[in-house]
């Protein structure tokens, strides 16, 4: 009986916070877009996008290299090392690019967003904006949201491209797979709409989820040092779990049928 009560209370609390998160996003986005916000968004693209670039480049390169190394040792048994190109490219474009980028983004930029907004709340900067007749949703939340949603697909594309180059580095330059077949079989197998565009769609969905959670957790956190640290942790945990869960759903929708 008590378990049922707890379940009910938990569900209600989840629904309530989902509701207020939706209201927050609504308040931030439904506003008439203001030209003044464009420089702010560019500033935020710098913070969430450019500053995440290094970790994305390094991880992409190494993941591509490792995949080529692992793939080669298996494929060479069947004399099919020519399929290394498509293997690396498809795994990166369909799965690893969007998913790993989103996970890294949640850890690198998502947590920073939560902490920043949380601190702005704790130091009364958000209240102070409101008292200056400036809507913090539009001034603070909206530019960060758009910056995240714009940056993440770009980061994912860069991740995949660098990974494929990393695979080339190991597969072709080191292990001796023929460069021509690496590219040509890849080209014959990878489809622009099905693989590249679907990967980008995935990454846009992940971006919305990660940025939304990060901003909401910061905006709704208890404005104490303890509350902010808890909110930051929650951002990373909740968005990582949601990314993996959503990835399965999206993959099933995009590639599952047929």
């Amino acid at each position, binding site marked *: 009986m008590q378990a049922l009560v707890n379940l009910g209370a938990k569900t209600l609390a989840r629904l309530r916070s989902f509701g207020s998160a939706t209201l927050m996003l609504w308040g931030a986005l439904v506003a008439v877009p203001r030209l003044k916000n464009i420089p702010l968004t*560019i500033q935020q693209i710098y913070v969430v996008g450019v500053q995440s670039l290094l970790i994305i480049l390094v991880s992409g390169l190494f993941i591509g290299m490792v995949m080529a190394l692992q793939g080669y040792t298996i494929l060479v048994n069947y004399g099919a090392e020519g399929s290394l190109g498509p293997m690396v490219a498809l795994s990166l474009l369909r799965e690893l690019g969007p998913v790993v980028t989103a996970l890294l983004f949640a850890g690198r930029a998502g947590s920073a967003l939560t902490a920043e907004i949380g601190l702005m709340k704790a130091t009364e900067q958000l209240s102070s904006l409101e008292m200056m007749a400036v809507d913090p949703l539009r001034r603070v939340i909206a530019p960060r949201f758009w910056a995240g949603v714009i940056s993440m697909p*770009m980061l994912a*594309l860069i991740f995949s*491209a660098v990974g494929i180059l990393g695979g080339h580095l190991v597969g072709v330059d080191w292990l001796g797979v023929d460069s021509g077949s690496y590219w040509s079989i890849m*080209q014959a197998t990878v*489809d622009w*709409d099905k693989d590249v565009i679907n990967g980008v769609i995935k990454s846009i969905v992940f971006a919305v989820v990660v940025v939304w959670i990060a901003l909401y957790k910061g905006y709704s956190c208890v404005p104490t040092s303890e509350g902010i640290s808890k909110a930051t942790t929650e951002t990373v945990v909740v968005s990582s779990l949601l990314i993996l869960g959503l990835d399965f759903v999206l993959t099933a929708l995009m590639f599952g049928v047929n």
Partner: protein
Amino acid sequence: MTSRKTELLVGLFVALAIAATLLLALKVANQGMSGSSDTYTVYAKFDNIGGLKERSSVKVGGVVVGRVARIYLDERELIPVVQLEISTDYIDTFPETSSVSILTAGLLGEQYVGLQPGFIFPGEDPIYLEQDSFIVDTKSALVLEDLIGQFLFSRDSE
């Protein structure tokens, strides 16, 4: 308020993303034949399509000229029908007498549709494949089990 340095770095970031997209578009994905250009549709009936899939390529002597758009079963005859989309670059090119066969790229490679252009008899007005034409002359996919069966059967009869 946004400093020049920030703008410059964001610009570089965007340029990098565009470069990545171009690499993926030109070097990685086969964007050439994926519905971006106009196509016309022809149909072919096979006895057995083997492992042919939608989006497999249609090749003439190794050159990709189109894709398999749809595979379905003819409800009356109960045999598979393959709907092919051929690029309009090749309209009025293949005679009506062309044949198609399902071939395999290499021993373990994927299956594709090979189109063998038919002859045009000199002096006749050529009739070309056009929208909604049916290709009559088809060769089914080789099914390994059938081949082995035939081989054993022919040895028995010797």
